[in-house]
């Protein structure tokens, strides 16, 4: 297992204090994580209010489930990211159900993601400082072959299953699995270095 970074150790300390009911540690952890988690929720949900509600659920979950965090399984950041992704997926599913009942919408997740990307809403990104870590990961992702990046992107943000990705991209299931695996392996290697 790769050695933990100073930030990961600091996050773990904060979460430990949170698990003991320390609200100031929670506040600090919020300040550290809320930006990337909110960005993720917004990207997946395409709606600021929905993203805020999802983020609220995530942080309340972090507060109440801090004791269940297992450092053997993931860093605090990854734990929080995967909680956020999971809450966002729940909301997308609920939204799909609501749309089916209320409006009979024909928009699927990809179309919705396209709508979001094409949105004319003023992006707060312009006012946010450049995040070195984010820029680094983006550059790592750019090093991946495009088909691997696309498969991981659809799986992670588009909440598509590997079967759906295979059908969407017109590729055999085995190819999609291999692209996701190879992409994650490559990303893992690059993050390590």
């Amino acid at each position, binding site marked *: 297992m790769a050695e933990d970074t100073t930030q990961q150790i600091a996050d773990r300390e904060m979460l430990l204090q949170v698990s003991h*009911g320390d609200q100031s540690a929670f506040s600090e952890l919020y300040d550290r994580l809320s930006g*990337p988690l909110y960005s993720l929720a917004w990207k997946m949900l395409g709606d600021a209010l929905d993203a805020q*509600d999802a983020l609220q659920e995530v942080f309340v979950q972090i507060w109440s489930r801090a004791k269940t965090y297992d450092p053997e399984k993931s860093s605090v950041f990854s734990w929080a990211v995967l909680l956020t992704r999971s809450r966002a997926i729940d909301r997308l599913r609920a939204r799909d159900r609501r749309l089916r009942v209320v*409006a009979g919408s024909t928009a699927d997740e990809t179309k919705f993601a396209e709508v979001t990307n*094409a949105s*004319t*809403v003023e992006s707060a990104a312009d006012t946010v400082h450049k995040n070195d870590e984010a820029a680094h990961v983006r550059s790592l992702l750019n090093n991946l072959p495009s088909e691997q990046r696309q498969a991981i992107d659809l799986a992670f943000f588009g909440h598509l*299953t590997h079967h759906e990705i295979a059908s969407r991209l017109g590729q055999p299931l085995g190819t999609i699995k291999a692209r996701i695996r190879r992409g994650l392996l490559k990303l893992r290697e690059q993050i390590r270095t």
Partner: protein
Amino acid sequence: MISEEQQDQAALYVLGLLEPHEAAAFESELNANAELRDIAREFREAAAAMALTAPPQMPPASLKQRIMREIAIKTEDRTVVPLHRPSLGWVPWAIAAGLAVFCGLLAVDRVRLERQLADIRAVDPLMQTTFYTLAPSAPAPADAKATVAWQPGRQSGVIRISNLPAPQSGKDYQLWAVDAEHKDPISAGVVRVDKNGVAQIRFTPVEKAEHVKAFAISLEREGGVPKKEGPILLVGSA
């Protein structure tokens, strides 16, 4: 040594793509295989790093206040002192005292629940949101549509439009709130669709609109107009 198939499963597992029975089988395998656990952890870190590629956004400061308030309430709940059991000799007195305390707790709990309900009403957007479905009228395409989520308390809303082709040069679509207390529709700004005819935009009307009966989209001069002039393309009530 971890096989490619195991790596495939690990990658799908961390992305939550395995079927429940496959995930359960993989978790059994994980429990018995430290090397596989390491791979899964590293895949999890790699997958989570994807979050950093989302366009950076910052949540509003009010969200942190909302969350801190909610966890403060949860903390109060955690610190409620349990009642002590009386010894048998004090049973009648203890029952009476217990009932008194119980009634007191119920009263406190009621106040707390009322406060929580008020907080939820204050912060839960869904409880304050009215949805409007806008249907097309000529000359809009028959499959054009829009949905508005409107929060009168915040005087803001979000409109999602689809299948509305971009207007000709020199024209813009404009959103209007039709309010019972205003003679003319209130402008809620220009709405620009992308090349696919879709848009998702947050808006605030230029004047206070407390009794909105309907929302409408019209075709106007480029940049929008203070008072509606052009034809209505989409309109709908709650």
